[in-house]
């Protein structure tokens, strides 16, 4: 499976990984920024942008990944319903 096909078929999992990696990077940059700042007033912006921003991105990534798992499960259940001739229960 080439990369473009993977992105097209599994866009939510790819987006999840991108968000998680970016979130981790943001946390790391925030930590580095806080380490270099001496005054608390210089550190707080790094906590908000790096810390809270990183947590948000990681949260979105985890949500996307779990949501993709749920969608796959739903697709399989829908297929079972279709084979049983009861597609109406998935409406």
């Amino acid at each position: 499976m080439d990369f473009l096909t993977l992105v097209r078929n599994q866009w939510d999992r790819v987006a999840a990984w991108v968000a998680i990696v970016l979130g981790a990077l943001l946390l790391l940059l925030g930590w580095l920024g806080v380490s270099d700042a001496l005054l608390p007033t210089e550190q707080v912006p790094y906590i908000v942008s790096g810390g809270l921003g990183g947590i948000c991105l990681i949260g979105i990534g985890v949500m996307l990944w779990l949501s993709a798992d749920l969608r796959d499960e739903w697709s399989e259940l829908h297929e079972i319903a279709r084979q049983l001739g009861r597609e109406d229960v998935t409406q």
Partner: protein
Amino acid sequence: MRDLLALYATTFVGVLLVFLAWYEVSASTRLSSQVRWTNVGVSGVIVLGAGNLFWLLRGRRANGQLKRLLVPLVPAPDARLREAAAVRLVAGRDMTRFHRADCALVTGKPVTAASEAAHHRARRQPCGVCLPRLEGE
């Protein structure tokens, strides 16, 4: 659809609050003001997290409801088929262990059946959960 809109709305509001908090914190040099805006940012994280959690719980509940509707509709396999499935030993192409066909660890996975000797030749170990070796003992 309403759940999806709620997810989008909470994510948007959450990100907006964090961005606003960062903007105001960066513009201020007073710690008291920064702490106040940091609280706004934390509120944004909470809003975003709650929205995402709600979305996942709704999805999980929807799948559960569908399962409960479908399970009674699936015809039960007769006893002979169940017995035959129980002694079949299966494994996927890249798997390092072989399983009984009814093992939960291979449910829904692309597996093929083979003899125990064939699995051993492919350097596969018996699964520690379904214990396929005990079948012949």
